[in-house]
């Protein structure tokens, strides 16, 4: 199971609490995780990445294993600790607004 941690506004929107656990077919990549999240929670489509281009929204970042993966290819395989569920894939909002 892949563990995904969403920011609180998106948890509220999707009516979920805590982490999301999802089955993701290997190879596990950012794109496949986001595809799985959006399939499970359609109301989150467009909130983390553009509907059409699938480019990450500017004030959204992706972290895992203490690394900022935001600028990695969305098709790059994620660290083994994310794949085996030891570490969550974090969707993080930029600090903005003062």
């Amino acid at each position, binding site marked *: 199971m892949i563990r995904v941690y969403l*920011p609180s*506004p998106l948890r509220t*929107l999707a009516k979920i609490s805590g982490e999301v656990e999802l089955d993701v077919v290997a190879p596990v990549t950012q794109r496949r995780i986001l595809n799985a999240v959006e399939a499970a929670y359609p109301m989150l489509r*467009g*909130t983390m990445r553009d*509907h059409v281009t699938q480019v990450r929204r500017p004030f*959204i970042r992706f972290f895992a294993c203490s690394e900022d993966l935001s600028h990695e290819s969305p098709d790059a395989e994620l660290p083994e600790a994310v794949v085996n569920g030891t570490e969550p894939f974090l969707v993080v909002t930029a600090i*903005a607004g003062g």
Partner: protein
Amino acid sequence: MSQVRVLVGTRKAAFVLTSDAKREHWEVSGPHFAGWEIFHVKGSPVDPNRLYASQSSGWFGQLIQRSDDGGQTWSPMDNQFTYDGVPGTHQWYDGTPHPWEFKRVWHLEPSLTDRDTVYAGVEDAALFRSTDGGGSWHELSGLRGHGTGPKWQPGAGGMCLHTIVIDPTNPQRMYIAISAAGAFRTEDAGETWKPINRGLVSPMLPNPTADVGHCVHRIAMNAARPNLLFMQKHLDVMRSDDAGDNWHEVSGNLPSDFGFPIEVHAHEPETVYVVPIKSQTEHFPPEGKLRVYRSRTGGTEWEALTHGLPQRDCYVNVLRDAMSSDTLDPCGIYFGTTGGQVYASANSGDDWTAIVHDLPAVLSVEVQTLA
């Protein structure tokens, strides 16, 4: 007994204010969508419990919410606004071409005849329509593609389509307004459009009387006289007696011809309300006095309405979608401020009271009169 429901969009949530027909005591429901910018909330005239809300965020983009129980519960709807075909370019602030990019929904206008049909005015300026209650959105691209689109330019607040007015006697006819492109009219339910800006004068343009490029802030109509339109422009209050074909200035004795909202009395088509703002750079009331101005003569002659409004040290703004009216008798007038107050008058503007004081900055106010 009738009820009044006031739908308030703010910088950080939506609120629903309700009262009986006396409009003396108000209940406040909210915050709904706490932490999100709510640009606009509006109910269907066909089914008043069907509400649509534009929910936006710098982090997460655009959402559309729908309620079928008058705002007690909400469901997220489709939030994909994709321009039709190749979007092309409009002018950027410096005059260079800039690609059309969707940013947010400024205004939602439910159909007058079908609760599942709703129009969305968006930034960068375009008009979208849903015929399935917000389940999907499709651009009415005849507006953006009618020929002058590449000349449109954003105002300071962005290039937004902020006003949608549907003719109640002819559903094929609609009006929209864009900052800063001007006003447009369709006679075929949105398939084709023509600019209706004759008579507007904008000194900041190379050609002050150009077909397009005018910064229209708001257009208002009384349903009983659908050919009579009033406009608050970036500068000047304007009037048209021929469905927008020709405009003439009716600013008259206003202390400033700059402002954002304009509203028409529910029962008196020649009674109009504006909130003058000092200037295009000083977005607060002249002399620190919050005054609504009312004309009972269709413009030109205006009277200040001050009773119950702060008359010193007041430096709030009233935004373009933040004024509305009910249909009771006497007619109620409502407006919200960037200071978080929503003021109401239950007697056509003679007396005002703040029905709520301390909301986040108010972006929009819509009023429903419920049987």
